[in-house]
């Protein structure tokens, strides 16, 4: 659900207005400093605000961004690469965000499966904690 495919951040500082539609599989790579709400991705669109920093992952090139913008007939101005320090901080924040989301999302699935296993194999005596 939450992509960890962010090992190769390549930030591009860009400003844009409007909505860029595209393939949903690409949008996980567009996690910017604003932590664009994934809710806006579910319908296959990405609502960008001014001064969003876009991490384009494996699609690190202006041409890719411009292609999306052009397809959407929306305005996009690539200002240039984010500074190293800036991009490092933003990358770190984006990574922490993704890891936290992943932790919160994955644990209940695993616990739910563990409960099913426990119900099939254990008794109350096996799992009781001392109060």
């Amino acid at each position: 659900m939450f992509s960890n495919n962010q090992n190769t951040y390549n930030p591009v500082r860009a400003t844009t207005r409007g909505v860029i539609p595209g393939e949903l599989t690409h949008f996980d790579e567009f996690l910017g400093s604003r932590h664009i709400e994934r809710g806006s991705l579910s319908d296959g669109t990405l609502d960008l605000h001014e001064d969003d920093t876009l991490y384009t992952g494996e699609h690190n090139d202006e041409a890719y961004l411009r292609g999306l913008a052009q397809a959407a007939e929306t305005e996009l101005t690539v200002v240039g690469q984010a500074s190293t320090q800036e991009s490092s901080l933003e990358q770190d924040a984006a990574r922490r965000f993704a890891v936290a989301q992943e932790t919160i999302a994955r644990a209940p699935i695993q616990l739910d499966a563990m409960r099913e296993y426990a119900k099939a194999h254990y008794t109350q005596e096996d799992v009781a904690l001392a109060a």
Partner: protein
Amino acid sequence: MKLFQQLKQLITGQVSSRTPQRLTDRYLIEQESLIGRELFGPIPDGHKREFFCLDAKTWVWHEEWRDENNAPQTSTTRYEVQPGGVLKVQPGRVYKYLDGEELENLALAVRMYYDRSMREIYKFDPQTGQPIHRTPATIYS
């Protein structure tokens, strides 16, 4: 002792009268919540706190206490895992997706909850997924 009982059963054909209690989700959640309630620091006198994983998509934080007029008060927060993120749901308040410090604090609590539940309740190593040495009281076939 267990071996003796098994031998006795084998020899005499008598089955132990002990009836194992089958588990329910409710019971398991109660056990997990014993861990969950400890994760956010000391519980003030007169407060009751529960923090638990309700199902495969929901975390719940529930508090009960009495106010200065001794009237009962409750607060329940649900954290729902959705495609758009982790939605914080509180009655009467605007729902919002978590981020920043609040998201990271919840993730830390969830991590601790998961690790301790796996080890202390289910006897599985949370890192490797392998069972920790244990002897179940009963194994159902």
